């Protein structure tokens, strides 16, 4: 007689953060529930209180070293709103260029460094070498392409902002460094190789799709709502724009919502078993109001992409009557299409003569009691909201990070994969890795998730009905 059991996976590896997964089995040994636990808490929403608002652009990027640019820019936008200024056009272009650099580097990291080892070496290959170092040994040319594509994104950040990680470039009212002609030309010189690497990655992934069509299409596939920013004409937007929400079939539910009104649409729940909160669409309630954000959501909800190469890929995304793509596996594909968009948009910005203007800063003193800054971070919509007193001292902070929005969806994805791959009390290496891979599709940024919150390794524990651990397997993100 088999008792109810729980499997714990701890830590989840090759993802940026710290987490555990538990899989609960029923008396028949079938999967009953699966939970994704984020295990760290840092407390940004409290300890920023009392700081001068202009310091926020320096403190909040330390939420996350993978997408610090998104936090910098969301923070700077919230501070612009507190100042009540419109930043000079060149400052906006430079911020967007910096953001394209980050989109490119973060998506390249996710694909080449973290996910390609599964795709190229196999989900069931030896865990000791199923990583970027193993990839360097097994396929050095591919590893080098990935490393150089990420490097190009990082160099774009460095050229605009002076530093690759935790730059001091966007400031309330604009930016503090102009782009020189020499820096612009250097970035333009790197574009052809970057395009080639992005194309290579797309062909590699589409080849994988062809060989594993069934698994790819059904991998943690489920219905959800979607949310993200779009341009006024509905085109894909990463830096600015307004919010759009769609239903599971891609129908628009709310459109062109001013992001500063996010509280009218999004609420959060907290659960005893995770340090990451669970945002939901308020009107639909909890947990029915589950929605997804990030690359897959953005491609599902945008009307088009305003650059030609990426838009051609979007047409393939929508081919054969696919209004939306629901498989979590397609996050990888969406990410690569967005790398193309990032390169094309960067090219447009670099060819605009205004990009080297030195009119980059509007000054002012705090005019408004609060300010909201919203961005599309690589992993999805990022919201910073600050309240200040008359002197500009921060009174309260509210943050909803990209990975947080996907929390309900990630739990759903883990449950779907566990149901398919966990069949008995025995834990097998390939199964564990697939459960992790479901999480990895979302490329969760646990540094972000744990702002209030922490980070993410992985243990799988199989727990019986009486609560005893009957089998366990652990991987430490160490």
């Amino acid at each position, binding site marked *: 007689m088999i008792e109810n059991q729980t499997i714990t996976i701890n830590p989840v*590896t*090759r*993802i*940026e*953060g710290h987490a555990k997964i538990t899989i609960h089995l029923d008396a028949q040994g079938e999967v009953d529930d699966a939970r994704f*636990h984020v*295990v*760290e*808490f*840092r*407390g940004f*929403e*409290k*300890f920023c209180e009392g700081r001068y608002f202009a310091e926020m652009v320096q*403190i909040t990027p*330390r939420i996350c*070293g*993978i997408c610090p640019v998104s936090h910098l820019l969301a923070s700077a936008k919230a501070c612009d709103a507190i100042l009540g200024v419109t930043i000079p056009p060149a400052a906006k272009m430079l911020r967007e260029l910096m953001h394209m650099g980050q989109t490119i580097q973060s998506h390249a*990291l996710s694909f080449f*460094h973290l996910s390609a080892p599964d795709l190229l070496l196999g989900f069931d290959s030896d*865990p000791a070498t*199923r*990583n*970027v*170092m193993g990839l*360097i040994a097994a396929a*050095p040319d591919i590893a*080098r392409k990935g*490393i*150089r594509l990420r490097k190009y994104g990082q160099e774009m950040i460095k050229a605009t902002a*002076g*530093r*690759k*990680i*935790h730059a001091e470039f966007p400031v309330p009212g604009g930016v503090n460094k102009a782009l020189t002609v020499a820096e612009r030309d250097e970035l333009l010189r790197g574009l052809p190789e970057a395009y080639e690497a992005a194309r290579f990655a797309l062909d590699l992934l589409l080849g994988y799709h062809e060989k594993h069509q069934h698994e790819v299409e059904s991998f943690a596939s489920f219905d959800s709502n979607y949310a993200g920013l779009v341009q006024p004409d509905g085109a894909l937007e990463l830096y600015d724009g307004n919010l759009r929400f769609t239903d599971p079939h891609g129908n628009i539910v709310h459109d062109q919502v001013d992001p500063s009104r996010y*509280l009218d649409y999004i*609420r*959060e*729940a*907290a*659960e*005893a*078993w*995770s*340090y990451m*909160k669970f*945002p939901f669409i308020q009107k639909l309630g909890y947990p029915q109001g589950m929605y997804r954000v990030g690359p897959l959501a953005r491609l599902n909800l945008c009307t088009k992409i305003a650059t030609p190469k990426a838009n051609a890929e979007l047409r393939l995304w929508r081919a054969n009557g696919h209004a939306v793509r629901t498989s979590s596996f397609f996050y990888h594909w969406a990410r690569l299409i967005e790398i193309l968009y990032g390169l094309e948009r960067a090219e447009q910005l670099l060819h605009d003569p205004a990009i080297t203007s030195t009119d980059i800063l509007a000054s002012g003193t705090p005019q408004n009691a609060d300010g909201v800054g919203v961005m599309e971070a690589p992993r999805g919509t990022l919201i910073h909201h600050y309240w200040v007193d008359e002197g500009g001292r921060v009174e309260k902070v*509210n943050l909803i990070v990209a990975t947080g929005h996907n929390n309900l969806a990630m739990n759903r994805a883990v449950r779907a994969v566990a149901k398919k791959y966990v069949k008995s009390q025995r834990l097998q290496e390939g199964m564990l890795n697939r459960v*992790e891979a479901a999480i990895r599709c979302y490329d969760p940024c646990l*540094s972000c998730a744990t702002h*209030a*919150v*922490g*980070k993410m*390794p992985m243990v799988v524990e199989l727990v019986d009905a009486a609560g005893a651990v009957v089998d366990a*397997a*652990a*991987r*430490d993100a*160490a």
Partner: protein
Amino acid sequence: MSANGKVSVATMWLSGCSGCHMSFLDLDERLLDLSKLVDIKASPIVDIKFDQMPEVDVGIVEGCVNNDEEAEHLRHLRDRCKILIALGDCAIMGNVPALRNQFRLADCLTRGYVDTESTQIGEIPSDPVLPQLLARARPLQEVVKVDVSIPGCPPDADTIWYALTELLAGRMPQWNERNLKYD
């Protein structure tokens, strides 16, 4: 030493933003050279079973110590490595995560999980599956002996490269005005 003559390394992420690990990845093509000299046995970027964590020559740690599991992981690594490196300001002195030390932990949790304007269903996480937060976030050296510190938030890739290559050559990295300038 690994059987293949390479220096074995484990990297660990405690309470930090992962920016120090990202800066390590900013070694870019130098990663290809490094892979000829060192074996990364455990890291957030690889898969490894915790109960199989091997003895290593060098342990590299990002972030400070924020909860009981992190303290345990850190001690575990300390017991199994010859040289322990504190990578970045969080590991060395607490840095941003230690800003919470000026507030009561309960107030930080209440703000995060109950009081924020978007929270509709509030509850402070308390399930035993979660690690216990320490009353204060602590730098590594308050918990274990640290052999080498690489300062910066984050130290840039050149600084990390300098420290690693010096150690591989059997020398202690020496910090001066030139190699501690990051901008």
